């Protein structure tokens, strides 16, 4: 199987060695052949994708020299695509066709990327396994009985199985990095505010951030160059200038200081995961990075803080799904109140209802101070821990997840166990920090393991530079499941 990177595809298109149409057809052919087993996609847009690729091929050469010329991409199904069904993994939006593109989608298309379809996700991005999609789970291409992680599981699978070289996901508590780790690809959550959230169906507005899945750090940097930057449609999108992230990929780690929070990774981590993580840290050290211990004393409170803050925001954001303006509406309600309640009961799945109620409770009179306000205060302590760590180090390294991919159904009856899968990923979004997960090895059962790198606010360049240098000395990024077993 040929594993193309986006960079190679772009260069082949620009040199005229392979047309955008040929690359698009190859991607669609693989999807057609493999996706019945993987279920990475909820909606394909073969005709639209081929039309856009053909339009790109008709352009004069000078107009084809764009950052993602002819590269097939997949987009998580909670990002609006004009005229193309956008479900957020929910029955509530099963037939929703947005009247506009999310800013990130518009920017990808303007950069020459060809959107081939929408990828499966946990309903409204709530989950850590993609089993909470109303349209059925995606499957991990390394072992079909395993979860791909979530909530952006479909996007991770699409890249891991080489259906597309790039995909977009969204990360609220780890929904890009955790599935990237489970599927053996690179996933980047940018700094909060680096990328526009306009057209991203909101889950938790102070945490949500869109980012890429890719095979290499260079490909992720290419995408971030395209999607980052101020957007008049999103007032929380930063006005800071966007550097050229590919220019930071020098391969040189001399002078870099990597901090390991031993107090956080000390217990509860699977032995195979820990071994791969430590070996990965050795590679960074051999490349010239200094490695020191740091402490994050409040990191252990990350899960309760995250699940109180995120669900509170979700309960407010999902109030808009009432069956009036878009989406599903329950039939035969005789009053407006009955219509709201029945619509939401039938339209939402169990995990979404659970989170809406948890958030409603945390915000309700009598409990607001004890739960929501307290969680927001502890969130400040978590941020301050990172501030202190970054006084000493340039990047913080952690295993992305405590275990490799778990079996489908393993945690479905125990929501708290599922939430604990996010133990190492919730800290970065609570503090607004950029973080990526890169493949750093396999367990003895041949399941991928991810190494997470967290950077300072608006310094995506350092984790990307570190990952790129790591890729120069390792082959984990090349590993791809030949044929889903």
């Amino acid at each position, binding site marked *: 199987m040929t594993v193309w990177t986006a960079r190679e595809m772009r260069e082949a298109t620009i040199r005229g060695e392979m047309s955008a149409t040929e690359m698009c057809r190859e991607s669609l052919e693989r999807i057609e052949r493999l996706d019945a087993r993987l279920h990475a996609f909820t909606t394909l847009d073969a005709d639209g994708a081929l039309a856009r690729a053909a339009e790109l091929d008709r352009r004069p050469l000078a107009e084809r020299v764009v950052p993602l010329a002819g590269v097939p991409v997949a987009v998580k199904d909670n990002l609006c695509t004009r005229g193309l069904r956008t479900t957020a993994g929910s029955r509530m939006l099963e037939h929703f066709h947005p*009247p506009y593109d999310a800013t990130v989608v518009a920017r990808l298309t303007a950069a020459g990327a060809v959107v081939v379809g929408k990828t499966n996700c946990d309903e409204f991005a709530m989950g850590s396994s993609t089993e909470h999609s109303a349209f059925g789970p995606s499957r991990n291409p390394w072992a079909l009985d395993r979860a791909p992680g979530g909530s952006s599981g479909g996007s991770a699978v699409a890249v891991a199985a080489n259906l597309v070289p790039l995909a977009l996901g969204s990360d609220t508590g780890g929904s890009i990095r955790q599935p990237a780790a489970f599927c053996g690809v690179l996933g980047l959550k940018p700094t909060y505010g680096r990328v526009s959230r306009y057209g991203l169906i909101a889950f938790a507005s102070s945490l949500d951030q869109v980012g890429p899945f890719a095979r290499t750090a260079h490909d992720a940097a290419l995408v971030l160059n395209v999607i980052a930057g101020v957007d008049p449609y999103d007032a929380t999108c930063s006005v800071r200038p966007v550097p050229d992230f590919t220019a930071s990929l020098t391969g040189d780690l001399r002078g870099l200081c990597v901090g390991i929070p031993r107090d956080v990774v000390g217990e509860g981590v699977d032995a195979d995961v820990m071994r791969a993580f430590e070996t990965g840290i050795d590679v960074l050290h051999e490349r010239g990075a200094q490695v020191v211990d740091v402490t994050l004393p409040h990191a252990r409170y990350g899960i*309760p803080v995250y699940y109180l803050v995120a669900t509170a925001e979700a309960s407010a954001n999902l*109030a808009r799904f009432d069956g009036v303006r878009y989406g599903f509406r329950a039939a035969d309600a005789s009053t407006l109140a009955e219509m709201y309640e029945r619509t939401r009961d039938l339209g939402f799945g169990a995990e979404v209802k659970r989170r809406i109620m*948890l958030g409603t409770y945390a915000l309700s009179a009598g409990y607001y101070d004890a739960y929501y306000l307290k969680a927001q*205060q502890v969130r*400040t302590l978590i941020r301050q821990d990172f501030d202190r760590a970054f006084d000493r180090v340039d990047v913080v390294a952690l295993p992305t997840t405590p275990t490799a991919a778990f079996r489908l159904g393993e945690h479905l009856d125990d929501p708290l166990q599922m939430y604990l899968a996010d133990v190492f990923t919730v800290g970065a979004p609570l503090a607004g920090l950029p973080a990526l997960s890169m493949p750093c090895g396999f367990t003895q059962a041949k399941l991928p393991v991810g190494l997470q790198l967290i950077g300072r606010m608006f310094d995506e360049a350092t984790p990307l530079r570190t990952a790129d240098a790591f890729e120069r000395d390792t082959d984990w990024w090349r590993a791809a499941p030949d044929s889903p077993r």
Partner: protein
Amino acid sequence: MADALSQADVERIAALARLALTEDEKILYARQLTRILEFARQIADLDTRDIPPTASVLEQESLERADCERPSLPRNDALANAPDAAAGLFRVPRVLGDGA
């Protein structure tokens, strides 16, 4: 912080959230939410006096745009996904009684 959630608590929360739940769901969510809240209770012991809450991680950087007229989403596009629309409006069940 609260003790175990009763089914009545779950009914009250569901009503606030505009969710109609079955009896089985009320039992299930009372048990699951109690367990999650018990886990969340560990933050209660932390001393957070004088710690400001984090509502947003951004030190804003206020983004402003010109105060000028712009075209809105065309009405037909806005109504295109509506479950029920008529005369250019969203249609919902009657809110006021006949005699109102």
